[in-house]
């Protein structure tokens, strides 16, 4: 069975602080995709990143960085120098890439609030 766990339900930090959102996943597949999506108060789901299971290189995109560790089945997301516009619900997710149409399994989400 596939499962994604985000233990942090809500996080609140002051602007400019660094914040890390944790994600732990379970799957019996050897090949899979991991994702992070952002859902701002307006409601849309914004794609942030996709990692393949065979690519454990960490990735940095501006103030965002992702740490993928297969040994601990974790895919954590760090925002450096947070800003108020980063306030949103962030979902970690998992899918199996090799099928005709692969559903995404989402975690329960972490609500991030950045205080000015």
């Amino acid at each position, binding site marked *: 069975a596939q499962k994604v766990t985000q233990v942090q339900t809500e996080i609140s930090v002051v602007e400019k602080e660094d914040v890390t959102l944790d994600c732990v996943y379970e799957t019996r597949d050897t090949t899979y*995709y991991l*994702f992070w*999506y952002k859902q701002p108060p307006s*409601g*849309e*789901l*914004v*794609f942030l990143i*996709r990692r393949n299971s065979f690519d454990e290189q960490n990735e940095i995109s501006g103030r965002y960085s992702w740490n993928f560790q297969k040994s601990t089945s974790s895919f954590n997301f760090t925002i450096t120098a947070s800003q108020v516009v980063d306030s949103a619900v962030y*979902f970690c997710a998992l*899918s199996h*890439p*090799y*099928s*005709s*149409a*692969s*559903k*995404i*399994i*989402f*975690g*329960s*989400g972490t609500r991030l609030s950045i205080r000015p």
Partner: protein
Amino acid sequence: AAGVIQSPRHLIKEKRETATLKCYPIPRHDTVYWYQQGPGQDPQFLISFYEKMQSDKGSIPDRFSAQQFSDYHSELNMSSLELGDSALYFCASSLNRGLETDTQYFGPGTRLTVL
């Protein structure tokens, strides 16, 4: 770049009524997915279509049906609406690259309220 289009964006219905949600995928995308997100919940997969054929099915009630048309747009039909059907319904699309499916991109969602 063109994104996934969903219509309507907001819909209010009475119990036991019928609703139809439409989804227009990103051009050249051949796979469409439907997800339901209840208040304070994560999105839950309902159903997907690849090349106009149903390819996977999740926790979709029997009262719901969907299809993908020749132009790749998809419609989710919901009958005998219940209060619990009130949710945000997302459509996502992706391109199937042979055996491997590409990233799913989500539309803005349709917010359905059942009174």
